[in-house]
């Protein structure tokens, strides 16, 4: 079983989350303490309860002050005041797009007769991303309290938490948390005597990445194939069951709870301030969960302020690249954001940092670290396979583009690649997605960014691979037949 522990001495005023068990705890504990890294004045809030015994139960949550924020909010604040506070905090959605949460809420129509729906997006399926799982498994009540406060603010009377099928423990723990909360009066009719009523239901996915797109998620809850909708109308106007709807990520609602508990000034004291020269930049404030996986010594979920450098996350939190090897590339925020090179790892991990080095954005803030021995051809093959598999098939550029990109990568991997394929791949990368304006949702953009960044930043490696593996045909420019699928495993 996986055990999560807080394994850095408390005097360092921070806690990292380590995956460890048995004697491994002592070993990792020591190595962290001896590493002599500078201290950072930051105290975990989102992960504060993780690692405590029975942290998933109501009793443990109440013992750490749980639900007191909800009690206070229901008693002292009007829904409009809560919206204003969240708006003033400049909280941006943690699910990938980074849209300001308060602004999203304010798009709901005034004095709507209802019902208004609230959806929590727990369909975390982006490769490399697992932080919502840690939250739901180890602190489900924090997610629930954030959800209830968010519903109160938005006037929602019913919330659906959409959990991907592959998270069975999250399902069990969230359901148990809902049952406990209802029995204790935090859910149901007339919550804590405030007159506010809310029901929360879990909805289980069935293995489709596209359900994480907010309108795909809505379609999926409605019982249909998860084909994203054309916007406008945006969900705030016409969403779930054609009613006003807000869709927020798990980590976002958890942040809402902490903003209401600790205040806007606290939230804005963390992270990267807005760029004064860019009036449209809402800044990157608050704590963020970073999942680090791949070729590192201590993969795991860590909490840090937005704006921490990619290098610090890898070297200080994740214990550096494994086996004493050198770093080659990092996926900064889930596979769809693309890659950054070893030279670019001082990039700050806030909403605009990865953009400046040519990536799609911060994404989910989950890093995949690749060492010097890993082939970028394998990287891109793996990425293209994922997106070809997960394209929902609704928009032709995405369905065909991801499919043909995979066909080419298969051929390259099997030693039949041509230099021309790299240009064809870039052409696909530059033409599919919302940004070029050819698809309904952002899945194709997510498929395009790994292609564009990998080939543009590691072109020499791709060319060398093609020339070495296809000595006779690398310069071919005429069309060549596609490979049989059976020629490459999986």
């Amino acid at each position: 079983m996986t055990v999560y522990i807080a394994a850095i001495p408390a005097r360092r005023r921070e806690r990292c989350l380590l995956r460890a068990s048995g004697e491994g705890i002592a070993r990792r504990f020591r190595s962290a303490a001896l590493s002599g890294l500078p201290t950072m004045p930051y105290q975990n809030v989102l992960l504060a309860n993780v690692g405590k015994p029975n942290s998933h139960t109501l009793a443990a949550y109440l013992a750490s002050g749980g639900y007191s924020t909800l009690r206070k909010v229901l008693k002292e604040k009007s829904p409009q005041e809560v919206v204003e506070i969240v708006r003033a905090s400049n909280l941006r959605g943690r699910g990938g797009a980074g849209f300001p949460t308060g602004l999203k809420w304010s798009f709901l129509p005034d004095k709507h007769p209802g019902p208004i729906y609230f959806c929590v997006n727990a369909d975390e399926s982006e490769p490399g991303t697992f932080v919502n799982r840690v939250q739901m498994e180890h602190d489900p009540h924090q997610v629930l309290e954030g959800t209830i406060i968010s519903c109160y603010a938005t006037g929602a009377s019913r919330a659906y938490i959409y959990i991907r099928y592959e998270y069975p423990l999250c399902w069990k723990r969230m359901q148990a948390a809902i049952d406990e909360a209802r029995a204790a009066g935090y859910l149901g009719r007339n919550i804590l005597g405030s007159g506010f009523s809310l029901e929360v239901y879990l909805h289980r996915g069935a293995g489709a990445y596209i359900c994480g797109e907010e309108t795909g998620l809505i379609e999926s809850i409605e019982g249909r194939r998860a084909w994203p909708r054309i916007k406008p109308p945006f969900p705030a106007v016409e969403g779930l069951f054609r009613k006003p709807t807000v869709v927020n990520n798990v980590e976002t609602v958890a942040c809402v709870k902490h903003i209401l508990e600790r205040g806007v000034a606290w939230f804005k004291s963390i992270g990267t301030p807005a760029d004064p020269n860019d009036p449209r930049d809402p800044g990157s404030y608050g704590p963020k969960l970073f999942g680090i996986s791949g070729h590192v010594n201590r993969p795991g979920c860590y909490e840090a302020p937005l704006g921490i450098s990619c290098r610090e996350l890898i070297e200080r939190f994740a214990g550096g690249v494994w086996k004493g090897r050198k770093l080659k590339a990092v996926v900064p925020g889930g596979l769809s954001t693309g890659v950054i090179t070893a030279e670019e790892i001082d990039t700050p991990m806030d909403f605009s940092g990865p953009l400046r080095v040519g990536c799609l954005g911060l994404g989910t803030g989950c890093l995949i670290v690749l060492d010097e021995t890993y082939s970028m051809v394998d990287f891109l093959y793996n990425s293209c396979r994922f997106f070809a598999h997960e394209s929902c098939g609704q928009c032709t550029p995405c369905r065909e583009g991801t499919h043909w990109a995979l066909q080419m990568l298969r051929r390259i991997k099997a030693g039949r690649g041509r230099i021309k394929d790299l240009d064809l791949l870039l052409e696909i990368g530059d033409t599919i997605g919302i940004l070029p304006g050819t698809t309904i949702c952002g899945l194709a953009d997510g498929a395009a960014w790994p292609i564009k960044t990998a080939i543009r930043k590691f072109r020499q490696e791709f060319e060398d691979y093609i020339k070495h593996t296809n000595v006779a045909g690398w310069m071919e420019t005429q069309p060549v037949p596609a490979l049989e699928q059976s020629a490459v495993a999986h």
Partner: protein
Amino acid sequence: MCTASRLLSDQTIAAIEELFPCYPTRQAVVLPALHIINQQLGHVPPQAVEELATLLGLAPAQIQDTLSFYGFFKQDKPQGKVRIWFCHSLSCAARGAEELLEHLCATLGIRPGQTTPDGMFTLEAAECLGLCDGAPAMLANDTVYTDLTREKLDQIVQSLRSTAS
């Protein structure tokens, strides 16, 4: 439809009906209902689709439309007692998942997407399971296995085989 040949058990139907108050439309019950049926039958054959359609007051095509979108539901024959999703997305692949998956294929004597002849295991090559901090990882029914190695995988298969049979 005569009761004797009905596929959905009374218990399954009751469980589906319990979901009605959770959603304002019957269409929205489709996905959770498919999960319940899949739990009972190990797959969702066309007859079950028709029975569900009758229960929800929908056309069978509406249910088939939803079902066919989600790769999770199979229609031709029951899945193995143990359904294994073996992750081969980037975080796992970077830590050796492809080789381990080949090893698992060889151990079970099947390719991804197939079921062992004894009906014990169904193996699927899965895209990211969200277990990246424990890569390489897999899910067998509701149980998560992380930090896999060849030896660990052999032990897991052995113990799954003995507990499932």
